């Protein structure tokens, strides 16, 4: 990844409808050909479709090549520490119900150093969207083994080939309790757009894992799913509930067992929505707790509540 920095383009006027132009910020510093460019472009597209007020969009990330995302998007946002962006971003969602939170990061950021946070963010079902840009290698630190590197992958830390069993991202996400789990590929603009948009519209913790090639350190990693390179991009057909017999062959995204089966398919597997259910979000549950507490206090003022607390210490 190139280390040069650049300044923002000329400022667009305020209150224009969201477009790639208004959403563009610093020029991306990724290597030419990096899969992450396509993900950035799809994010612009999805925001264009959603037309949220610009000031209500938050683009957040941890550390890694992929995590540079926030600098390239003209929205509020932040670049945090390695692996810990999820709890930060979840708090934005919980602390500010008026904003839309998008969190980006790499496979190392999400599945290795941040693995514990991913599990808990998913089970708590905080309303936000998380995009994992999986290149199956550590890009920023220049080619070490990542938790999704396949056995045999030769990296600087495994010059004779990786030996540890890689994580299966879909299984991990399903098991964690995420309420929207999808998988896509950076070479498939249309598919990515559909997945990211669905994720954004989902109420709850939605996550899309996107295979995004690191041309610098893991060239050709995902060719098996690129038809142009002799691979096959197989998508998941979702159930239409139209009563037809062929519909029973389609995937029911509320069926966890079926989702796990899909997750276990041989590499490169299938792409699409693996799982999607409605479950109360942490945002709703916490808001309910507050509403009941406020009702109990009869909407007392902060000062009266505080005075009451001290009266009990007399």
């Amino acid at each position, binding site marked *: 990844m190139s280390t040069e920095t650049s300044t923002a383009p000329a400022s*667009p006027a305020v209150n224009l409808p969201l477009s790639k132009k208004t959403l563009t910020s610093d020029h991306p510093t990724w290597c030419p050909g990096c899969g992450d460019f396509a993900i950035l472009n799809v994010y612009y597209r999805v925001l264009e479709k959603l037309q949220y007020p610009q000031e209500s969009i938050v683009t957040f990330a941890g550390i890694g090549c992929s995590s540079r995302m926030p600098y390239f998007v003209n929205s*509020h946002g932040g670049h945090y520490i390695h692996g810990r962006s999820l709890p930060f971003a979840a708090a934005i969602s919980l602390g500010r119900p008026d904003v839309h939170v998008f969190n980006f990061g790499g496979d190392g950021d999400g599945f290795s150093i941040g693995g514990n946070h991913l599990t808990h963010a998913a089970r708590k079902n905080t309303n936000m969207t998380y995009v994992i840009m999986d290149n199956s290698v550590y890009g920023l630190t220049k080619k070490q083994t990542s938790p999704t590197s396949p056995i045999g992958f030769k990296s600087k830390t495994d010059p004779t080939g990786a030996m540890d069993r890689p994580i299966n991202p879909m299984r991990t996400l399903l098991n964690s309790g995420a309420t929207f789990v999808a998988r896509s590929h950076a070479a498939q603009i249309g598919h990515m757009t559909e997945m990211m948009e669905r994720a954004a519209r989902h109420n709850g913790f939605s996550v899309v894992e996107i295979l995004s090639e690191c041309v610098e350190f893991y060239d050709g990693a995902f060719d098996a799913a690129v038809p142009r390179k002799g691979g096959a991009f197989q998508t998941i057909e979702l159930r239409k509930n139209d009563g037809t017999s062929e519909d029973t062959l389609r995937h029911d995204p509320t069926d966890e067992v079926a989702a796990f089966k899909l997750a276990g398919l041989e590499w490169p597997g299938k792409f699409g929505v693996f799982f999607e259910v409605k479950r109360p979000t942490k945002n709703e549950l*916490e808001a309910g707790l507050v509403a009941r507490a406020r009702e109990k206090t009869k909407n007392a003022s902060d000062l009266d509540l505080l005075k009451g607390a001290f009266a009990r210490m007399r």
Partner: protein
Amino acid sequence: MVSPNPSLAGGTSADSTHQLLPDVVIRLAGNSQDGIQSIGGFLARLAGRSEQEVMTFMTIPSTISGGPSIFQVRMGSGEILTSGDSADFLVAFYQHSYDAHINALRPGGVLIYDSDHVKPNPDDKRFTNVGIAITSGTIEAAGGTGKDKGKNIFVLGLIARIFDLNLDKLRQLIQERIGSKGDDAARAALLAFDAGYAHPVENLLGHLYRFTTGTPQQQVRPTVTTDGNTALTYGLIAAGVRYGAAYPITPWSSIMEVLRTEFTRYGGLFIQAEDEIAAISHALGFAYSGHLAVTGSSGPGLSLKMEALGWAGMAELPLIVINVQRGGPSTGMPTSVEQSDLLQALYGSHGDNPRVVLSPKNVEDCFYIALEAGRIALEYRTPVIILSDQAIATRIEAFEEPDLAKHLVQVKPDLTPRPADFKPYPLDGISRHAPPGTKMLSGKYPTVTGLEHDELGHPTGSPVLHAKMNAKRREKIKQLAASLPVPEVYGDESGEVLVVGWGCTYGPIREGVMRLRSGDAPLQAGHMHLRHLSPLPPGIGEIFKRYKHVVAAEINDEGLYGYGQLASLLRATYANPAIRSLCKTDGLVYKVSEIIAGVKKIIAAV
């Protein structure tokens, strides 16, 4: 015969049956199921409701080496600074209580023991021994199926008689506290209380006691009694903190337990995180969102927060971080007191990261230190660490209720559109972030970042900018330093020795310096207590020069070079060779006598 607390004894008879005394130290020793702690609770409440008598009150930390459950209270009619070096009265419920605690009773003190369970050593003539059949007396009085349940209330009645406490108020307290468990429970408790009170203990003691009427303090508001963690909790709420996150650890946990429920009542939110790193990350997410947020822990948890704390310094977000210190390193002595996290608070994390570190001096101060932390965090856009400790966190003190209407702060995200020339990281001012939801009139939206950045927040590798930004982050903390008051000196303004302390050593040092300045060979001595540990307030170096010796007393190890953590900091800062170190790590708060002996020894050795 009994003149409790030799140094403070008042002692002329009020009438034929009552001897006057300014204060008394009572230690109760039994088993945890005997409700020892609740006797303390009743006495604390009573103290709080006795403004006319100006009763003050302090317990020792809830855990002290010794028997299965003990409670020590010092109560009286003047300012009480410590819970007392040794007990004037010991109430022993069992033989093991007697065995473990008899030496905590000062010679000439009173031993009250349950004659149903305890046989005192007949050869030990140091004390006035008063045997009372506490167990059978309770069973007889309360009857029913409760067996000896209520022994604690019997003893409370006994204490009420011995010290002429306000009966009506105590009966009302019992009704309030035990009445919620049903009428029968309250009736039984009152019967036990009356039986204890009716016991003619003066026949064994020779006389009863009464507290001197102290000069009533000019107190406008009622007295409250609570522990340090509770005072800190409500200080945070008064400071405007409505959001936070943490992971449980002793002795921090009780703060997060209360905040989890309390914040919802104020419309806020406290998250129990999966670990301390997630906790500080949540808290920073709230801070970025425009709220005033808190995270907290004890020693080991603070270690986990350090990387994120470095980010917060770099990104310049306001945050309150609490460390209720305990004995370390590692899991160490998790229920004992220590002050060994000072250097961690100052220098933990990586890179250059000037810190703000405050420390409360007692329970009451926990409330005010939280207010100050909130104010500094918001004004200087910086994390503020509060170093409390296990002793302050768990002991109970009585103090005047704060002026809540005056102190309550409201913090709301500032979403006013930012002008076209807005810079998130101006070189010539303090950074003030625009929280999400804020319109940027330039059309350019900012990124908060831990990468070195220019004034607009763009990453930069420029060495010149890095130096400038480091200076900017340093200068704002120096600006804060300049605004702090010069620390007050208690006692002699110059002379032989200045004893310097921080945190829970406040009381013992103050009482120790009082005694060093009086008695047969009085010393010219002063006491300086530091609530601001970083940045250090102005004027300290000059004050130090006025004394022959400066002794920093603290509860931590003397380290590789013979100086405790505060002493090391002061020596490095003021380069004054008169600064010496008094340290210990026995897991207990300083006794006044330890301060006196330690200071004298250092003076003698130099």
